[in-house]
């Protein structure tokens, strides 16, 4: 489902290759899934030179930049809503959500549709980089290593050879957390 979609999208993907051939990847992924349940898979994207990962089980599908209808009276990071086959789903601009400067829409811009708390949410990201497989043991709890992104969005840090992948926690992606704001305000003072 999500995986099929992803692979389909990866086929059209410019510039950033997924490892191995498409069929190879699929069988490899399948095989690995079957073989070892402790291996988790993440759809990763790059943002300000940090690689972020979303558990593939949460990923519903990946879209190219759709037409977004602005939603007034909502926080900045809510870009608007899109029509996903008759479903109205909100789009979160991940850059703004993570307090990065706003980015530009390019050919690589994607919307990762994820399911969180029984809601479908589109995450507007600069790109979709890879599907990475990480053994559970390679995932550490969040540390102070990652600057900029608030801890409420992070469930862990995945290590993969020389790469670090920030594993995202999607629970708080959709709503502003007053507590978080307050905390940031305190720090600023």
């Amino acid at each position: 489902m999500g995986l099929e979609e992803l692979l389909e999208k990866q086929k059209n993907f410019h510039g950033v290759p997924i490892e191995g051939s498409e069929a190879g990847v699929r069988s490899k992924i399948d095989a690995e899934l079957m073989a070892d349940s402790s291996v988790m898979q993440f759809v990763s994207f790059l943002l300000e030179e940090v690689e972020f990962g979303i558990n593939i089980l949460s990923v519903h599908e990946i879209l190219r930049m759709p037409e977004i209808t602005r939603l007034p009276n909502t926080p900045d990071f809510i870009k608007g809503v899109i029509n996903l086959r008759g479903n109205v789903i909100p789009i979160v601009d991940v850059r703004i959500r993570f307090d990065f400067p706003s980015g530009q829409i390019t050919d690589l811009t994607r919307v990762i549709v994820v399911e969180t708390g029984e809601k479908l949410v589109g995450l507007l990201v600069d790109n979709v980089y890879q599907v990475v497989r990480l053994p559970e043991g390679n995932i550490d709890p969040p540390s102070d290593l990652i600057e900029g992104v608030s801890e409420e969005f992070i469930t862990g840090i995945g290590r993969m050879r020389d790469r670090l992948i920030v594993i995202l926690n999607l629970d708080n992606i959709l709503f502003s957390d007053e507590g978080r704001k307050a905390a940031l305000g305190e720090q600023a003072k």
Partner: protein
Amino acid sequence: MAFSLGEYQDIFLEEADEQLQELNQNLLELESRPNDSEIINNIFRAAHSLKSSAAFVGLNDLSDLAHKMENLLQGIRDGTMSVTRPVVQALFKSFDVINAVISAVSSGNEPKVPMGGVIAELQRISESETDAKPAAPEKSATPSAKPVEAPTRPAAPDEDVPKLVLSADDMRAIRQGVDAGMLGYDVTVFIDPAAVMKWMKAQLVLNNIEKIGTVVRSIPDVEDLSEKQMPNVFKVIVLTDENLDAIRAACDVDLIYRVDLRDIAVSQVNGKTALTFREEQTLISEKKEEQKKPVDVAAEAEEEEVVRPEEDEAEAEIEIGEEKDEDEAAHPEAVQRAEGSKGAILKTVRVSIDKLDLLLNNVGELVIANSGFYRLYEDLRRRDMDKALVNEFKNRMEQMSRIAKDLQSGIMKTRMVPIGQVLTRFKRLVRDLAMEFDKKVNLKILGEETELDKKVIDSIGEPLMHLLRNAIDHGIETASERVAMRKAEVATITLNAYQGGNQIFVEVADDGRGLDIDSIKRKAMEKGLATAEMIASMDNEDIFNFIFAPGFSTAKVITDISGRGVGMNVVKEVVSELNGNVAIETEPGMGTRFVLSFPITLAIIPAIMVKVNREMYAIPLSDVIETIKVAESDITTIEGHEVINLRGEILSLLRLNEFVALDSALGGNTRIPVVVVGYGNRKVGLLVDYLEGKQEIVIKSLEQNYATVEGLAGASILGDGSICLILDIASMINKVINDQDFLMRRDRKKALDARIDEIKEVSAERIDLHGKTTAPKTDDGFSGGSREASAPAESARGDFKDYEPFSISAQRVTDAKSAEKPVDAQRPVMAGIAKGDEPVADLLTRVAAEPPRTAVDDDEDEEIKKRVQETLDGFRQDLKDTIKTAAESGTTDDHIMRSLGMTREDLSRVQVVSNVGAANAAESLSKVLGKRIDLTIPEVRVLPIEKIPEFVGRIDNVFIGVYMPLTGDIRGTVLFSFIEESGFELISLLYGKPVSDVKTIDEDGESALKEITNIVGSSVVNVFSEKINLAIKPTVPTVVHDFMQSILDSMLVLHNISNDYALLMETDFYYEDDKVIGNLLILPDTESLQVIVKKLRP
């Protein structure tokens, strides 16, 4: 993981709920009519079903409880117990426990409701009462000479089972038969009441029985009856050699759903023949039967129940495997009802509301997609197409549209449920509450058959409950009070549901004391919801609406106000959620009526489509009163609210574009479409840009995947797949009203402060609003004598102290923004003051209208000067880097650029040229003025036209704008806007006059500024011209002395800039280090922009 009873949980919950309702309702009736056997039977049946289904899903405690209830009810039914108050209370208590279990299960929790107490109580009651139970006397047939009567049972429930009346001949025949070794049976046959040709069925059964034995009699005599007279139940006395199976087979005729049978034993009593009927057994039953039918010997029956397990209800049920128990089938009315419900079961499919929603949604989409065909048809018609073909297309299209609409209304109807089930369950609530508050209340329910959308039905319970609670608690007087007031001792609460037009109305009316308007007023003021003046100007209905305000219903309020309070906010909210409305009618001493109104269906609504700029919004037609057009000049401002006079009525206006944070696409001179919407008894005019007509839309919730957004009722997907947001007029107006109230309060406070404080301090506050920390001390304030330093210049200088040189560009924008704020903030102040204190208002008006001036600070801090210089130098050094940063920092322009076929590289190339141009311009300016000129890095942006004013900022400040159209290979406009004072100063500089003399712009002044613009603009344009090797020809400049907004507007209009996007190059010029001259804006039009970009590409 939520607690679950497995796959049958849903069915169980639904049934249990129904049964519980039935129990409650019947018990209430039983209370008033304790001897009505039918009610007892109903209760018994419901309790029994509950017992079975609870056992089925494994809720054994519940099953036990139901069993105990059943025992108790059995006693009542058998007449061994009477309906006493403790019995009823115990039963009600049991129902509450059951209800608790059911709600625990339905909310996914394991039911941990202690039942021991209730079970024990039931046990105790039934035992204590049963002790008194008289032993049922053994009844036997009377001697043969007399007709034999079946024993009269206590609380005989089934009088329709024909009484066994046997003649002497019959008796003899039976005795002879039995003596001859045959078996005598009393067979009771039940025919489905829905069956046609019952007489035929009966005849068939008799014929069959004739084959295996002798029919002594049929009761009534089937032979003598016509089809019309044929009852549903008849008896056959039969003598046969065959066993039970044969009889069963004989009776097994289609639509005969039950056959009961009793052995007839013949005995000699005192030399006379007596017939003894043994325990009845059921041969055929399509439903699980309960064999509590009267028997000859009660004691024997008890025994046999144990001996013959199939007689035990629970076991029998399992054996037969039927889920529904229809006890008391023998009871004719029960049979009738059982059959009715049986029919319903056979013909009904339970569908989850979700599935229906989905279906309805799809059909809605279909209807909407269909509207696409109409557009297509219109297109076809306009073209010279084959007429016959087009007509055929039209026919088909209309046919399809009809089908789609039928389908839609059909599915819509499936969602409609009679409201009765909701209303009747309040009987219990009213009874309990009346007891609790010690009041006498009679609940009258009307219009139970009125159908409502299931969604409304599901949600309406809570608001109605609150309304009833309030009615009983606050509305209705105690019986003694009522008597004193010569009202009927028993109060009446009426629940009424009816349809009217496209709305369904549900009323809760009481004949109590009515709302106390004075208490509400007092409370509203106490709560700060309104001021005394506000209240004075409100009509009663507005005041009554205060009771819906959140927090108006705290415990304290209840005691303070004799009116209503509890949960009214909930009522309002739930009803609003359902797109409904609440109206209050009340008459002191006479009562209160709450009328809830709901649209008949919620899924598809007609809406007026409006546009703001490029965004489409839908306004539900039910909220729209009319649409009108007004000129901007018709709009006046009262206390900061924009209003118009609509046929003598003051109508508040609300600019939709402001509400959705967009710029209006309308120019100044057009008549503005206004959608007049009604909300409660309030009317508001919504200013929109365009009206796009009426359309049917399917509401999709935003909550499903996001959350409720204030002011939006949901979204709809239009025929072309795009999303259109649906405005929630009520919440929108609420939000605006709240904002306005807040502003008003703040303004009021400010106005007061302003009146008290020295003018000087007002001035200081104003400067503070600029965001500076070191407001210069001003001695003569804004007296008009000062002329050299301007506030923005001050502001710039002040800010420089706090900012790093590098961030100057961003700072400038900030400055521009902060500069416009004070004016905004002060406007309402003026409005507030205008009422009271004219002179001050005048002064303030001048403050606001003129850019503030500060005195020349002769002792200007050298330190500051130096730092400003450093800042500017540093900024120039960093110019290059900044360009790079500007080019890289992402902005929302990006997608615009993309749509224009531009890249960031293109933009940075334009930026480079602009820099050269700006430097050139500064040089020219410097030569003309004979002063050193500094400038900011030109900021280059691609913007939608409507964003230009926002980008330029300070749109509410007065500027002198000089714009110079460009012709030739590149078209566009150059705008040089001067801060008013700087403009005057430049004029005086150029003409060598004393600065203070120039207060207005005369012809000479105009030509001076035109000249400057020409020189400066041309120097920039020339750079572009050289770079791209195209001729750009500046034309005669025009001067406009006005607010920035107006300058921009007239420029856009006069130069007919109709493109969607513009490239903006903006530079601020300073002279004498820090004084702002103004800024230069260059706007090539879109095509020219693309040419420039192309030409600049390497």
